[in-house]
């Protein structure tokens, strides 16, 4: 045991009492805090603009919530497969990791597909029906900025998770790295929970 600890310190000599687990995890949390501020500013900005506007449509009527409810369900499922992939690799179960991390990546891809379909449908059919366009009303602007910023995070997450999966299968990454990737992926899920409520339901 002490040998392991000594080895560990030899690899990361600057390990601090702040984060005995790993610097990577601390780094990811700091990044997520900064990212949360970006999303926070966009959501607060959206709220202020909406409150200050005299005319604002009922979002659920224009946007529809069936597809989005499914997308929410999908992201929650992919968060679950992400934690299952972490518990798989923690047990050294590489097949489980492959299955669950693969499903997580697939969930992200389906989410992006749904979003691409939703945007196309909104821009070409739904928004003109209600007298809006891609860029003429704050309703559309805030919607596309918020969901677009989130969609880019999902895209980043899919690429990140794929890279982690490949590195794990090659034996270069371990449970520690899957946990850090998981933190990012759950954060993306968490933000979608807020966007779903503030942009679609409220």
């Amino acid at each position, binding site marked *: 045991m002490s040998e392991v600890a000594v080895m560990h310190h030899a690899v990361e000599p600057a390990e601090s009492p*702040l*984060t005995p*687990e790993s610097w990577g995890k601390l780094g990811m*949390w700091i990044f997520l805090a900064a990212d949360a*501020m970006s999303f*926070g500013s966009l959501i607060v900005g959206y709220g202020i603009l909406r409150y200050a506007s005299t005319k604002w449509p009922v979002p659920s009527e224009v946007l529809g919530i069936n597809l989005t409810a499914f997308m929410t369900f999908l992201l*929650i499922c992919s968060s679950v497969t992400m934690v299952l992939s972490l*518990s798989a690799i923690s047990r050294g179960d590489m097949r489980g990791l492959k299955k669950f991390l693969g499903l997580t990546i697939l969930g992200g891809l389906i989410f992006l597909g749904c979003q691409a379909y939703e945007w196309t449908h909104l821009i070409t059919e739904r928004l003109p029906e209600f007298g809006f366009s891609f860029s003429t009303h704050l309703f559309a602007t805030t919607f596309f900025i918020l969901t677009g910023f989130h969609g880019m995070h999902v895209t980043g997450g899919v690429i990140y998770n794929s890279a982690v999966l490949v590195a794990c299968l090659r034996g270069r990454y371990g449970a520690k790295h899957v946990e850090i990737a998981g933190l990012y992926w759950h954060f993306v899920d968490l933000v979608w929970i807020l966007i779903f*409520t503030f942009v679609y339901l*409220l």
Partner: protein
Amino acid sequence: MATTGAHAEPNYIAVFWWLLALTILEIAVIYMPFTRLVVVILLVGLALTKAMLVALYFMHLKFERLTLWIIALTPLILCVFLILMLTPDIFPS
């Protein structure tokens, strides 16, 4: 507040069912004949509860030490400041 890996694994599937139930509840709320204020309070409450479940169990915040809590809470506090600073723009005196 043990180090990660030392804590017992939370029941992820139970958290999943909670998230699913709260999502269904949220969708049900917008079809209920409540006043706008009640709907807003319920939806914001439900969304924050779901976000907390994800952070506490999926992101393991429940099992982390104080440092990560401080990092995680910082953006929330700053967002409250942001709202307070922007409010005069909506209600000009």
